């Protein structure tokens, strides 16, 4: 995936001011940066939930920001998981997972449920298939949300601060799921505040500041020897807050 000169404003507030970013297949890229630096907006633009103002996004050689593109087709190849889970509260876990494959990919119910069971079992949720989301813990809900996105067999997964709404003791189980995905070769773009996790899992870390990618490199470079003063400042604040 290539992103070139991506710009996005909400009213007069320009959130993305020309983002350039490349993500290779099987690569895991972590986006770090202060709240409001544009991490979430960037992910939402890639999923085409937010229309972009300028710039291009190319996924597997296909420019998804061009006019007249079938946005639904694009979204089926790009999974996104939100901070607030956003499960469908009126559906069982299994139905949450099988809805899109059945309705949009035309899978039979049996096929979708077989795949759903397989995915739920892989992430330790086999016994939750018939429960409704409000019966699940936050960590379980977030894992279901990841499974729901995976059920569409996306080529790229976007994770938007997926542990930020969780109680501290539930963070680990969700991070474990993401590690497992990375080990399986999933291409991922992850916005996160979990620096230790980013250092551990990322092939590359990008520091987003005021709507541009100010600095990027391997985790070792960024966390141990940042070049930009603003990156240093950000990391010092994180350390001071006891989060790394």
């Amino acid at each position, binding site marked *: 995936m290539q992103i070139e000169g991506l710009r996005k404003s909400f009213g007069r507030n320009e959130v993305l001011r020309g983002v350039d970013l490349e993500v290779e297949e099987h690569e895991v890229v972590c986006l770090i940066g202060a709240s409001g630096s544009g991490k979430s907006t960037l992910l939402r633009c890639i999923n085409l939930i937010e229309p972009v103002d300028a710039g291009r996004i190319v996924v597997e050689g296909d420019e998804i920001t061009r006019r007249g593109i079938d946005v*639904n*087709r694009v979204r*089926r190849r790009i999974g*996104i998981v*939100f901070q607030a889970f956003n499960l*469908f509260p009126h559906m069982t876990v299994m139905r949450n997972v099988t809805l899109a494959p059945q309705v949009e990919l035309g899978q039979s119910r049996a096929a979708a449920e077989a795949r759903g069971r397989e995915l739920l079992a892989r992430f330790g949720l086999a016994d939750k298939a018939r429960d409704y989301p409000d019966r699940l813990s936050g960590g379980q809900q977030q894992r279901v949300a990841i499974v729901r*996105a995976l059920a569409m067999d996306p080529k790229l997964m976007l994770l938007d601060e997926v542990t930020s709404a969780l109680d501290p003791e539930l963070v680990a189980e969700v991070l474990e799921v993401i590690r497992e995905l990375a080990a399986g070769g999933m291409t991922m773009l992850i916005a996160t505040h979990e620096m230790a996790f980013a250092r551990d899992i990322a092939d590359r870390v990008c520091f987003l500041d005021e709507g541009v990618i100010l600095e990027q490199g391997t985790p070792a470079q960024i966390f141990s020897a940042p070049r930009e003063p603003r990156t240093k400042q950000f990391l010092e604040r994180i350390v001071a807050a006891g989060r790394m």
Partner: protein
Amino acid sequence: MASEGDRRAGPEVADRSSKIAGLGAGGPRGVAIALASTVVFFVVLVVVITHAPGWPEVRTTFFNWHEFRTSLPEIARAFLLNVKIFCISEVLILAVALVLAVIRSLPGPVFFPLRAMAIAYADFFRGVPTILVIAILGFGAPALGLKAVPTSTTFWGIVALVLVYSAYVSEVYRAGIESVHPSQEAAARSLGLTRGHAMRYVILPQAVRRVIPPLLNDFIGLQKDTALVGVLGAIEAFNQSQIDVDATFNFTPYLAAAALFVAITVPLARFTDWLIVRDRRRRQATGAIA
């Protein structure tokens, strides 16, 4: 007759106030106080009414047991027409109103004309008195003399009720649709669901569930308004009681008709309240779901 009705109403009113106003929270003592004050209230009411100077006359013209019993079977038969009008209208209203609500929720400038029409429709039919819509359609449409146009008063009564009530019910649906958090639509669309599928599988099921109590409320109103079709001459409960009143110069048949309406609308109202209370309790139990 009157005192009998009062005694029956007593515990029910107490029960309702305890549920609605939360008096039951006071425990057995709260219930006892509610019961006592209700009994006192109705005893005073009955005493005042039965000691009014015109009471003997009112009693023979309105509370005539013999008239009640002779008119009731015929009115009950006519009341079946009200029930029929109610049932057919209700199904049509649920469908038409849903279409209107979905039209109003269509985004973007392209759909502006459709949205504007739906808004104009809701404004117009909520503004015109139901009885006028019934009269205009019921007397006007058959007068056109077109072969394809039915002349049945029941038919036009139903059409008029559907037109008027769909305007109200579409607003109820719309409120429900808008109450579903935008993140639900974002989640659905992000999975690749089309706008229509997101509406059908994710938004509407949640929206409709939330508006069931207010929907039932509107249907209590609809059940009563079936009597308005009587102005076209259809022999429904109100018209039948009118015929009986004209024949006997006694107004008791009106009470018989009223009793039939109440027999249906009161259980519906209690059921609605029960749903509202259950809904509230459930939401407090689980907290808001993002």
